[in-house]
């Protein structure tokens, strides 16, 4: 089996600050995802990547950048943190490029707090 590791688990930043969240997977999966989880709102897709160096915008990409320099890692940058961005950010991966047909494997999340 594999694992998805997200760092840090807790991230505290100041309003306007640039913040980076990291995700590593050892499944050797092609596709990786970043979701944002707000209480009572389910998960919303921020960015996804179907292979190394590929980046695709999701429904909530404004205010975020992403980077997939290696197959095993996918990072997310909050370009200018806002107080309404306090949420849990979940990284996930899936074996191939099929997206919806596949099972997603999730990390345990990074909880972002903006002061």
């Amino acid at each position, binding site marked *: 089996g594999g694992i*998805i590791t997200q760092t840090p688990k807790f991230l505290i930043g100041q309003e306007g600050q640039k913040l980076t969240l990291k995700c590593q997977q050892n499944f050797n999966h092609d596709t990786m995802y970043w979701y944002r989880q707000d209480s*009572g*709102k*389910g*998960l919303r*897709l921020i960015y*996804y990547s*179907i292979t190394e160096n590929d980046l*695709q915008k*999701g429904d909530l990409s404004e205010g975020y950048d992403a980077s997939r320099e290696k197959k095993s890692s996918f990072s997310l940058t909050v370009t200018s943190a806002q107080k309404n961005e306090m949420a849990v950010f*979940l990284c*996930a991966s899936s074996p191939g*490029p*099929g*997206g*919806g*047909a596949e*099972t*997603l*494997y*999730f*990390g*345990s*999340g990074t909880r972002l707090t903006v002061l």
Partner: protein
Amino acid sequence: TQTVSQSDAHVTVFEGDSVELRCNYSYGGSIYLSWYIQHHGHGLQFLLKYYSGNPVVQGVNGFEAEFSKSDSSFHLRKASVHWSDSAVYFCAVSLLASSSFSKLVFGQGTSLSVVP
């Protein structure tokens, strides 16, 4: 536009009781339906998935879900819950897409509390 609706934000049952968590979707094409579970402080874990065939699908830990095209539903059930089933449950739907990426759309989640 695909939408997924989980009508109950919170459900509380006693240990040993049966439970049904409701999920309704709106999309007319070929879709995949799935359920995920999230224990407190953890990421989501896959429970089960349906695309075609027998409308009742079995998942891990005694969970099953039943697809109904007429009701546009994919409700999750368990005959006898355990305290460890306390978690948030997410229903998700995705399009069957042969040539392009198809994302999962998640419902808002239902928080299940199992009382000893």
